[in-house]
């Protein structure tokens, strides 16, 4: 199964992204589909790109979007509703990221998947069904077209000499939006810094203090 060398993984503030799109069409695509459980037998995430959509790709024998040559440079994954439902396995977004995905645009996402992506610096932008359909059609018509994701303005712009230019609004809740723009999406340091408050919270919890 073809894989390609990953570009640099996300770091710091994420304000925009430019890249080609790849569309995986369908509702309720679960994380077992994104990466089957047999690929979870590992102690690092390094080698997961080969597991991305592995069963679907096997079934489609080369015609899955992740195997089509026109999409080998793609970095924006366009999906439909409830993408990433099911298992909490972070291996799923890790596999997509290591394949080359740096942002998603879709109708909606499962919560745990969304949170996993956020913690990796991968924005999951939501968009109206009509926008998603238009993007899927544009990608099919011109796979080489570049998408420009402006996270500050929350807009996606398509530049194509074949299907013309267009621009659509996308949505991101204020919390994740700010975390990505500020670069604080990898929040461990922030959580660890509140140690005194953490101690105060714990000292007031009855079940940690003999129920007194």
């Amino acid at each position: 199964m073809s894989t390609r060398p990953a570009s640099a993984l996300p770091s710091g503030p994420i304000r925009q992204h430019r890249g080609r799109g790849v569309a995986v069409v369908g509702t309720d695509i679960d994380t077992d589909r994104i990466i089957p459980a047999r690929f979870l037998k590992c102690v690092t995430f390094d080698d997961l790109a080969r597991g991305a959509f592995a069963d679907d790709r096997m079934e489609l024998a080369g015609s899955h979007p992740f195997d089509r040559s026109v999409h080998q440079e793609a970095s924006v994954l366009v999906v439909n509703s409830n993408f990433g439902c099911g298992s909490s396995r972070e291996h799923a977004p890790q596999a997509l990221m290591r394949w080359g995905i740096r942002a998603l645009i879709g109708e909606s996402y499962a919560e745990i998947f969304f949170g996993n992506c956020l913690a990796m610096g991968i924005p999951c932008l939501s968009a109206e069904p009509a926008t998603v359909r238009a993007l899927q059609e544009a990608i099919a018509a011109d796979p080489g077209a570049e998408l420009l994701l402006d996270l500050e303005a929350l807009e996606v712009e398509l530049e194509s000499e074949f299907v013309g230019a267009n621009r659509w609004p996308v949505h991101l809740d204020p919390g994740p939006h700010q975390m990505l723009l500020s670069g604080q999406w990898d929040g461990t340091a922030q959580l660890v810094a509140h140690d005194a408050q953490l101690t105060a919270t714990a000292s007031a919890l009855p079940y940690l203090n003999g129920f007194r």
Partner: protein
Amino acid sequence: MSAGTLYDKVWDLHRVAELPGGSTQLFIGLHLIHEVTSPQAFAALRDLGLGVRHPERTVATVDHIVPTTSQARPLADPLAEEMLATLETNCSQHGITLHGLGSGRQGIVHVIAPELGLTQPGMTVACGDSHTSTHGAFGAIAFGIGTSQVRDVLASQSLAMAKLKVRRIWVDGRLQSGVYAKDLVLHIIRTLGVKGGVGYAYEFAGPAIEALSMEERMTLCNMAIEGGARCGYVNPDATTFAYLQGRPSAPSGEAWQRAVAWWSHLASGPDAVFDDEVRFDAAAIAPTITWGITPGQGIGVDETVPTLEQTAPEERPLAQEAYRYMDLQPGSPIAGTPVDVCFIGSCTNGRISDLQAAAAVAKGRQVAAGIKAFVVPGSEQVAAAAKAEGLDAVFTAAGFEWREPGCSMCLAMNPDRLEGRQVSASSSNRNFKGRQGSATGRTLLMSPAMVAAAAITGRVTDVRELLGA
């Protein structure tokens, strides 16, 4: 916005800080870890030069990758052995209790934490596994997390979270004989859909819920996530307290009385405000079974596979994909569908009452010719309890295989898996394409008693016919 619910009260008690952007830093009272989603988190901790903030609030077991035949070390699969050895090393380095193979306390993480009394009302519980919602059965706020968040909880015993809305799911009446908590939750998901719960915590309440045992409540909350709700819970009551009393990690002596008083006041009050409410009638629910490729594609065992016309327009592409994958005809009865493999187990239905219900069907009968049927207890304690009452002998006499505890064919990370296009009758929680280890394997979700009935007849069967209900 919800107010005065158990969710609100537990949330407020565990708030550490408000974070920029509007999320909340939430203290985690119990962190459960296992071999699949923790190794990368420990590695990240090492890279950051951080330790485990509360090793005494962190508990480990091994469940996903363990074989259910021989569990002798080293495990036959070198990758599985590496994962187990990595967990052992990480737990030993950080002073974390690991309930390992043969300890008497090993098992599926969502089975052992309740049976050890670790899960208690009013706690926040996190684990790198989506079925952590199970622990909500105790009136805990429990949710699955990914590996980056496992790292965060190890490092800080807390998480950045956004508060959920609360939907009360009120269930009147009583479940009929031969209808179980599994049928109830499959019915709820079938009605509200697999994404109906996104953004919500589900509070299960009402007479039918109050009548459920703790193990039934665990089955119900376990599958909240299959309806899109990351967290589901039941208010603690006398049933909860009776289950907890005397368990190894439950409070004892004078602390017990204080604990019961505190737990009691956590329940959603009569003036609690919910963001949404949905009502069901338990008496109207039949044994329920999935026919498709999501847990929402369920029907009563006496119904037919829905036609496109009976399906909402936005669900039709998925229904068509399911007809093809499952090779089922719209409009045809689901009862009578031949099965190949029958699996009783998992964090949804691998507890002692599940095995008792299945054994009641299997007792004195024989597994149909050509059917592979096996029972995987949810934990070493469940296995011991089953043996003590002779259930293992009932199953083996009927032609079932009796196995060692683990997650097994629920997700097929161990050697237990479907082959080719086999159809499984499964007491687990997910019927996704490829879920049970074959890219073309097919899964029909149902209660353990229904799985036993399918094993006996070789076909999808209304268990009430065998129970004389």
